[in-house]
């Protein structure tokens, strides 16, 4: 089999296609509000990037045409609650493009994953809007009203299963008695898993990061589960809830900010997986993908330094 080399634009396009199944699952369960978010995010991303490139005095067209800003915008748009007000996604994407990418010199120079930087910024700055997830299917018109502030969000929101576990456990209810199975979360994660396997088969991403990240999640959650199964959820719960699959195949595999050596990738992914579980279980915020990825992003130069492969013949 010959592997055709893809250019940046084609890679970004393939990754966006691979996201379609997971997004489709989101649309099926919660309505098409996520599509409004993606639309807003892409527009904001393109405008911000064009303005900033102009400010930097560099050429606008080639940098925008590589599609990386669109992918960043899409990733951020599907990570936030789909009924968050419009200014959330606008602020988040602008922050991600300016402080996550352009300020370091554009694509290829950024130490942090821009989408996750935008997500962390939003979660820390606006915790209220960022934790109101849709409880049920919401029609397009209703969603648009909520996003643009025409109608009230009350009654439409609910806790995700990660939130639910957190609040119930603090009330001292053992985990076996909780209703954990969230069918929508399960299918969204399966959607991203299938998309990720497609990317693996197309050799757009390599197996090391997804496999080691998922095994990190399994190892850490199983260890906690064995310590006390009353307090800690099983590893299956952690695999199919929150943004685990999205992180494993789409976020941690970002070629710019991930480790670049074969063994480095395994360490990088494994540590992200472990951190996801630790921050989810013991941290103050319900999901932990953004923080885990950002923490490991900053260690990538060190990991790369110690995992340089031997030069042949030396």
């Amino acid at each position: 089999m010959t592997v055709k080399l893809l250019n940046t634009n084609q890679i970004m396009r393939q990754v966006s296609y691979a996201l379609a199944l997971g997004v489709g699952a989101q649309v099926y369960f919660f309505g098409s509000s996520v599509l409004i978010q993606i639309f807003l995010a892409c527009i904001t991303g393109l405008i911000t990037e064009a303005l900033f490139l102009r400010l930097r005095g560099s050429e606008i067209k080639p940098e925008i045409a590589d599609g990386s800003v669109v992918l960043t915008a899409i990733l951020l748009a599907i990570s936030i609650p789909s009924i968050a007000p419009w200014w959330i996604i606008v602020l988040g994407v602008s922050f991600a493009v300016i402080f996550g990418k352009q300020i370091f010199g554009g694509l290829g120079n950024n130490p942090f994953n821009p989408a996750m930087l935008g997500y962390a910024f939003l979660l820390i700055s606006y915790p209220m809007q960022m934790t109101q997830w849709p409880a049920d299917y919401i029609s397009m018109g209703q969603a648009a009203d909520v996003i643009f502030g025409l109608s009230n969000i009350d009654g439409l929101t609910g806790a995700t299963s990660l939130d639910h576990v957190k609040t119930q456990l603090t009330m001292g209810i053992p985990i076996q008695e909780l209703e954990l199975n969230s069918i929508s979360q399960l299918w969204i994660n399966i959607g991203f898993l299938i998309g990720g396997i497609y990317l693996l088969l197309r050799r757009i991403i390599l197996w090391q990061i997804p496999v080691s990240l998922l095994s990190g999640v399994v190892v850490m959650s199983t260890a906690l589960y064995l310590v006390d199964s009353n307090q800690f959820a099983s590893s299956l719960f952690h695999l199919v809830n929150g943004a685990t699959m999205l992180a494993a195949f789409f976020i941690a595999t970002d070629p710019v900010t991930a480790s670049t050596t074969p063994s480095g990738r395994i360490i990088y992914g494994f540590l992200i997986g472990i951190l996801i579980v630790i921050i989810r279980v013991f941290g103050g915020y319900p999901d932990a993908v953004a923080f885990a990825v950002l923490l490991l992003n900053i260690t990538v130069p060190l990991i790369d330094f110690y995992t340089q492969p031997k030069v042949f013949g030396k």
Partner: protein
Amino acid sequence: MQEYLKITRNGLWNNNQALVALLGLCPLLAVTNNVTNAISLGIATTFVLVASNLSVSLFRNHIRKEVRIPIFILLIASFVTVVDLIMQSFFYDMYLILGIFVPLIVTNCAILARAEAFASKNTWDRSVIDGLMMGVGFSIVLVLLGAMREILGSGTLFDQADLIFGDLGSGLKVTFFDQYQGTLIALLPPGAFIGLGLIVALKNLIDSRQMTAQTVANSKATLEPQTN
């Protein structure tokens, strides 16, 4: 006079302790979540800078070189104690808010750096001007950062100003947005780092603009005689 102007420009711009030397970042980043705190710490730091520069330059010929650093710290620490006690007795609420950062002025590297690099080698009048200008330069950055973070973070300006200005201060408070929920990150440490980074970038931008303007002017000046 020319000399004093040069010292002033150094303190306020060319060698600004917060923007160029990047000294004293701990209090700079920690207390600037609103303008009032920033002004208070700025005044306290400026007072200590002036007093320590004056005393170091007066005693500079009596201090043995081998033990100068401990002596400088001793002098600085006595002035910080004075500030600490004054704040405790007259601005007690502000004293509680600033907390550990008032005694920590002793460890502000900017103050020791000016004592060592300037006051121990210059006459008292120059040292006082240097201390004052370095202090004012530092305070301006404190207030600027405090204003940025307060507007973004809580949507107000000069909140709690009555703690240092009395009744006069309570009229100063400006509220920009009603029912503003706040961008929390501006009040948290990351906001301080990002804000300082932006101010440093702005200064560098102005400097490089000036430099290009200067080189253009210079090249014109050298070219013109040839063309004439």
